[in-house]
């Protein structure tokens, strides 16, 4: 699992900074903030690993970074929708790195949970990594939890994949 994290760590930091538009860095812990009230979770799985990626954020942070602007993002549904899409795009970047290391996974569709004063428990340090990104309001926290699956067959060869922003026409 540590090799998997080594493969995706910088990809997630870069993607988080790009998508959120602030500074992003690995964090020791997900931490907590009273303002956190939204969590998006997206799962993934394949022959060699399974796990999930989560994002905890405040509604105000999601509104502040919403690509359609704060007026559109003012609705509860719009904030939830964008946080779900962020989790999808972040995991998409991680998936690309995993493919380059011969690790194939399929992504689920994300779900969003809403609460009050959300405090995310510290993930196990040997199976999870945490990241923190600044936003114009409260920081956003991301964690990815990975479980290696024991399988007898050798790993498939690394696969090339298209990069974010690439386009192809047939």
């Amino acid at each position: 699992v540590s090799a998997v994290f080594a493969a995706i760590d910088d990809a997630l930091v870069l993607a988080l900074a790009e998508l959120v538009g602030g500074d992003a860095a690995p964090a020791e812990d997900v931490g907590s903030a009273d303002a956190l009230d939204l969590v998006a979770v997206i799962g993934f799985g394949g022959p060699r690993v399974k796990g999930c990626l989560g994002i905890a954020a405040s509604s105000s942070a999601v509104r502040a970074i919403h690509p359609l602007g704060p007026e559109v993002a003012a609705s509860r549904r719009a904030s939830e929708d964008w946080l779900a899409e962020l989790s999808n795009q972040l995991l998409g970047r991680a998936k690309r790195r995993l493919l380059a290391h011969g690790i194939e996974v399929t992504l689920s569709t994300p779900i969003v949970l809403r609460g009050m004063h959300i405090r995310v428990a510290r993930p196990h340090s040997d199976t999870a990594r945490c990241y923190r990104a600044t936003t114009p309001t409260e920081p956003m926290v991301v964690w990815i939890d990975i479980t290696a699956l024991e399988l007898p067959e050798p790993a498939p060869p690394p696969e090339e994949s298209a990069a974010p922003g690439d386009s192809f026409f047939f």
Partner: protein
Amino acid sequence: MKKTVLVVDDSATVRGMVRAALGAEYEIVEAADGVEGLDCVRGGGLSMVICDVNMPRMDGLEMLHRLKLAGSTVPVVMLTTEGQTALIARAREEGARGWIVKPFNADMLRQAVARIAVAA
């Protein structure tokens, strides 16, 4: 008269981003998954479809497959976080005309749609 573009994505935000990018030049119709997307295509009048891959109920590749089986000639461009070459090859086999990896910007999308929809 404006040409009509169908955008199929389970994210209302992404549908809104596509509408913001193309709405001045094209009529935009929205669907939240492949099932709704198929219904829209069956309704006719579309110049092009922009379609996500990972969606609930029916994903974009399944929708593409069903369009091919139905003999649809409406050009489809996939717009997705997925970049796996095997998926891109499958989409091409199923008749997709293009594949764009998210994130996208408005200029990129306008150019892609101009290339596909105008030729259609």
